[in-house]
């Protein structure tokens, strides 16, 4: 079922359309939500599952709020997922003590904000070609917005090594990617 048919079905609360939407967009929304709800913050797969389900539930409750004139359904759902995840993160933060680093992580503009969306796939591909553990370090730093100290703790590596690997990887990517990336990575 293509997006146009899904949109049509969603407006009619057709369960097949919702099933199709869930199959089609859940992976994307899962990652969108995961960026804001890290394990280090005490969030589990269950939280992600509920967050993504809530996105579809919002769509079920009020599909008229989606305006095709403003963009694709995919973008609309990503926006909802991001908002819901941030809201969930903040709610959790209110009920426990969080570190300054976590707080910064939650509010820090994400890496992709500084990047044109159409280039994102290329950047991902560039990072994906890097060997481990460098690949994980970059994924965590740029896709999950984790600070070097947090990455070091999670991966049980010295912070200095994380910073070195980030530096070398940026260099390597700068050679293979366009000027735009160099600005972002610098």
């Amino acid at each position, binding site marked *: 079922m293509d997006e146009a048919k899904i949109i049509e079905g969603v407006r009619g609360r057709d*369960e097949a359309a919702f099933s199709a939407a869930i199959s089609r967009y859940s992976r994307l929304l899962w990652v969108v939500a995961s960026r804001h709800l890290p394990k280090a913050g005490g969030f589990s797969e*269950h939280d992600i599952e509920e967050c993504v*389900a809530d996105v579809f539930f919002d769509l079920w409750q009020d599909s008229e709020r989606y305006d095709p004139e403003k*963009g*694709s359904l995919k*973008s*609309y759902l*990503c926006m909802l997922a991001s908002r819901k995840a941030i809201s969930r993160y903040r709610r959790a933060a209110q009920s426990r003590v969080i570190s300054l680093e976590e707080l910064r992580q939650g509010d820090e503009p994400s890496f992709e904000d500084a990047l044109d*969306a159409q280039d*994102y796939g290329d950047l991902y591909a560039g990072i994906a070609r890097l060997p481990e553990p460098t690949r994980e370090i970059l994924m965590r730093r740029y896709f999950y917005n984790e600070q070097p100290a947090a990455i070091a703790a999670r991966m049980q590596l010295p912070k200095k090594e994380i910073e070195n690997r980030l530096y070398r990887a940026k260099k390597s990517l700068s050679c293979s990617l366009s000027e735009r990336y160099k600005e972002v990575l610098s």
Partner: protein
Amino acid sequence: MSYPIDPLEQLSDQELESLAAYEHPITDRSIQGIQGCFTARIAEGAEAGGTAGVPEITEGAGIAQATKAARITEVVPAPAQDAVAGVAGTAQRRPLKRYLVAAALAAAFVVLVGFTNGSRVYALYYQHFGEGAHIAQYVSEIGQSAHDQGFRMEVLSAVNDGDNTYLFVDVTDEAGGRLSEDAVVNRWNMTGSRPLGGGGTSLVGYDPATETATFAVHSISAKPGDSVLFTLSSFMSGATDYSVLADTIDIAQLLAQQEGSFVTRNAREGTSGGLSPKFHDEGRDLSEIKEVLELDALALAIPGFDKAWISNIAYRDGMLHVQLGRDRDRGNVAVWLGLVQRDTGERLDPYYTIGVGQRNEDGLADHEECVFEVDRDALTDYSFVVEGFYYTQVFDGTWEVGFRVPERMDSLVRQVGADIGIGGKTAVVAEVELSPLGLTLRMQDTYQFKGELNIVAAYRDGSSVTINEGEVNTLFHGEDTFTFIRAILDFESIKHLDINGAIIAL
């Protein structure tokens, strides 16, 4: 203003899965879980009236909450006191046996229509256990069905946490017109490496479009990996409540005409019945009742009520003994006899009741002697009242499905030997078991407890979760097992249980 384009939109599913693996891995189960959670959200919304007018969702209607809860049977640990072993509770067992049930069992009664079977199963787990993702990984979808008399039974799924196996079962009236939203399982069994050690069933959904009733079944029997046979042999539908005040029967005059005699009770018939709190508080037990009224000394109809009759009556030692006769094959009728003070309307319940006479295959006796503690001189002020409900439709047959019990989910078992207080009495918790599905207490000397039972699980990080809150009333004695169905996340991180103020460290 346009929606912002999220750069992640450019990634393929495979790339997204690779990326997710660094933080929260995503699997096909995750997608099913999202679908189930979404479906459950809709159900919750419909139940709360939040999405009124949604055509695919129909809220269960027409059953008062109290009645609904009362028809739930749970945790029947084959007590020695009760002749009914290995069979789910029947309507007649309700009067003084309100089984320990978790609130979750009674909480949700919502129909989910139009979604795929898989998502329905997940939604049911969400509804029933309150959580999904961590349970979903242990759920085994069965999808086996059996037919008899135009009814199709399908065992949808199973999950096991050691002693307990939980099933969701659909019963569909393919012929149509016979199954209503108040359906209840009357008899069932599950056999594996050991006989059914108890359990219960509850109606969790009804789809009027397909006439499908969905039951949750909790079985204390099969072990993980067992090949088991689930057999549904009777279910009922069309519940009708009644309450009849038999004020044309003059109790005192009846006694003057018919003073029944007593005979020695045949203990081999087994002992079943109910106790009042006073009876128990006096340290008494039904097994000490040696004499009962002679059977069928009379057959006095109760005006306005044809489900039972008065088959004997006598007054002895300050007690009014009234024997009710009833058709022992009518497992579909629940009858409670009481006395009502005519001027004040005050209700007097039996001091105890005891089943006598022949028993049907469910262990249901065809007579019940109800004994009231009341002055003989005051009987002129009282009338009989009979109350209960009966099912207009009873379907006996054989619906059998064999399947393999899924692997058990992890659990935490601790021998504790802790004393807990309930309603001024003390019980011993010999062992606790925590699993993602709930808490099981193995208790000693439970006998009868009526009172508040509040159980809170405290996590090491300072958070807590309430497992049970409110009154329980149980009559079983000996070594009993009570299961509280409530999804528990990260049970291994629980530091202690607080049971009515008693701290049980784990």
